[in-house]
């Protein structure tokens, strides 16, 4: 924790709690059968998006994947409208059209969760191209899992970002499994090592250590903003739940899961905060407050109206006017 100021840690801790709280609540609701579709929980991986987003501005962009709640919360999404989307209500971010796997908010630079593994990589490169062409200081962050790095889209997108020195940071959440397939089965090498194939920096950090992620992301994002091109950042972490809510996860041993739970990223930050003078009571209150926030967000999300069936085919095409420059 070389570079972060102590007073900045508390809000980050809060962000981590909020992700865990959101996922916990959403999981519970899903298990109760009130949320349609699929749900992928990111519990255990909270340090990654929080450590990365600490360096992002509102006008920076992110692409996400199927396990996107943490990414988008850390980028600033409102849990009320997220829950509303999970409930498929018109008050949701996507007006109930997208759901968990496609949650988007362009006003926050959130290009969207994505149901296609790997697809966000070239899209992030394209966002980087925009910033480069318009000569802004924006960056694009692309989040994906260890499973995505074996897709052609990953390869093509990484290479394009590299040769054009685009302002993109590729953040791989290596949680060691893609559904049931171990990372070490699907590739002979580590994720960060793949950066060498594109001539860009590849950095591996403990993704359960907020400070490590924070530092590595800072370097990578500053590098991107400075026009020095992309970085591949591998954050080693673990998903506590099954691949989706309901997956018993028979492909992992209990011991492995338990071992990772001991490396829980959340209490590590709490311990640090306590040792830096934050009172336990204050932290307890914060934790309670977040649980409260998510309960209430879920409730308010559920209050939104269901879409009017007559609007089903809206927004397939943009209206064609006389376009102006």
């Amino acid at each position, binding site marked *: 924790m070389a570079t972060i100021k102590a007073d900045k840690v508390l809000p980050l801790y809060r962000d981590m709690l909020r992700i865990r709280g959101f996922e916990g609540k959403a999981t519970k609701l899903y298990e109760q059968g009130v949320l*349609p*579709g*699929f749900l992928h929980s990111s519990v255990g991986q909270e340090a990654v998006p929080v450590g990365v987003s600490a360096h992002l501005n509102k006008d920076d962009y992110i692409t996400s994947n199927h396990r996107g709640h943490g990414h988008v919360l850390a980028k600033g999404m409102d849990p009320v409208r997220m829950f509303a989307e999970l409930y*498929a*209500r018109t008050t949701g971010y*996507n007006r*109930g*059209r*997208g*759901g968990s*796997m*496609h949650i988007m908010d362009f006003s926050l630079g959130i290009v969207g969760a*994505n*149901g*296609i*593994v*790997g697809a966000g990589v070239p899209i992030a490169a394209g966002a980087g191209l925009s910033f480069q062409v318009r000569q802004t200081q924006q960056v694009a962050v692309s989040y994906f899992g260890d*499973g*995505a790095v*074996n*897709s*052609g*889209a990953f390869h093509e997108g990484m290479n394009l970002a590299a040769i054009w020195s685009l302002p993109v940071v590729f953040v791989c959440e290596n949680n060691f499994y*893609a*559904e*049931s*397939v171990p990372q070490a*089965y*699907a*590739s002979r090498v580590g994720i960060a090592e793949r950066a060498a194939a594109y001539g860009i920096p590849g950095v591996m950090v403990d993704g359960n250590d907020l400070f490590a992620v924070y530092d590595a992301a800072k370097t990578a994002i500053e590098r991107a903003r400075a026009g020095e091109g992309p970085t591949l950042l591998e954050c080693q972490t673990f998903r506590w739940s099954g691949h989706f809510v309901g997956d018993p996860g*028979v*492909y992992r041993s209990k011991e492995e899961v338990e071992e990772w739970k001991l490396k829980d990223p959340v209490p590590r930050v709490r311990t640090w905060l306590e040792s830096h003078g934050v009172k336990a009571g204050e932290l307890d209150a914060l934790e309670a407050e977040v649980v409260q926030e998510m309960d209430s967000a879920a409730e308010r999300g559920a209050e939104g109206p*269901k*879409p009017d*069936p*007559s*609007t*089903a*085919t809206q927004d*397939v095409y943009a209206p064609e006017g006389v376009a102006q420059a």
Partner: protein
Amino acid sequence: MRQILMREALREALFEEMRRDDRVVVFGEDIADPMGGSYKVTLGLSTEFGPLRVRNTPISEAAIVGAAVGAAITGLRPVAEIMYMDFLGISMDQLVNQAAKIRFMSGGQVSVPLVIRCQGGPGRASAAQHAQMLEAWFAHVPGLQIVMPSNPADGKALLKAAIRSDNPVIFFEYNGLYNVRGDVPEPEEDVVEPIGVAKVAREGSDITIVAWAGMTRMALQAAEQLQEEDGVQAEVVDLRTVSPWDKETVLRSFSKTKAMVVAHQAVRQGGVGAEIAATVYEEMLDQVDVEIGRVGAKFSPTPFAPELETQIVPGKAEIVQAVRDVLSRTARAVRR
């Protein structure tokens, strides 16, 4: 006869064919034990046949199909799985430019005996990227065969046929059928149904409903409802193979009923229904007194919200409605 689930029937076909023929290999994402496939259709295969013949793959849909092509033209009979039909776009080049064309381009030197199994389809609030029916793309590609069974017995018998076929087959399993139970002959009988042959799934005299996969099931339910509520006898032709499709059976049924609805879950515009309807008009215009009903999804991606999804994707109710529309127009046509 014993009754088993669609997923069990398909699994039996894989076991039986792997036992029968050493050249059959199976690979895809998460298909090996202990996962045994996202929908458990391959459960137990890797345990029985071992890691040489049954393998998990990385998330590499182009390579899955490419490797299947390479294996097929060098003596194996790969059955590769693409987890969702929606992901076939990633494999498209290998499917269309390689698998479908190698035999032809080689001047007939070699065949490409592979099967691509995939599942998916609407009806589960899976949103726009996990609910598509894309058979029309592949029906437009010479060299491919597209098999889409509607019940456990056909699922098993046609998967066996697909594995034994010397041609590349896309074998599509509609997710909504996995837990459907049906009569399936005993393994010893080794029943294999021919690819390219439709089946009259229900006899009727008033109108023909042409459907496949999940829509056949809904067509049968629609036919029941029509019988009860309208006294209409609908004949249901289960196409089973979408390419090459069985024109004769369809035309034979039409020449009996003189009215038709063709129904699919895929988008209506440019769907396979257009080809079938156009063909019936072309071949039997003399006998077409009333427009053929074409049921398909509205021109939109699939929405997440269940209320909207049912608006976009047709089901039993839309088939019933289409039949009623056709028959009411018939009445008018007759009056004219």
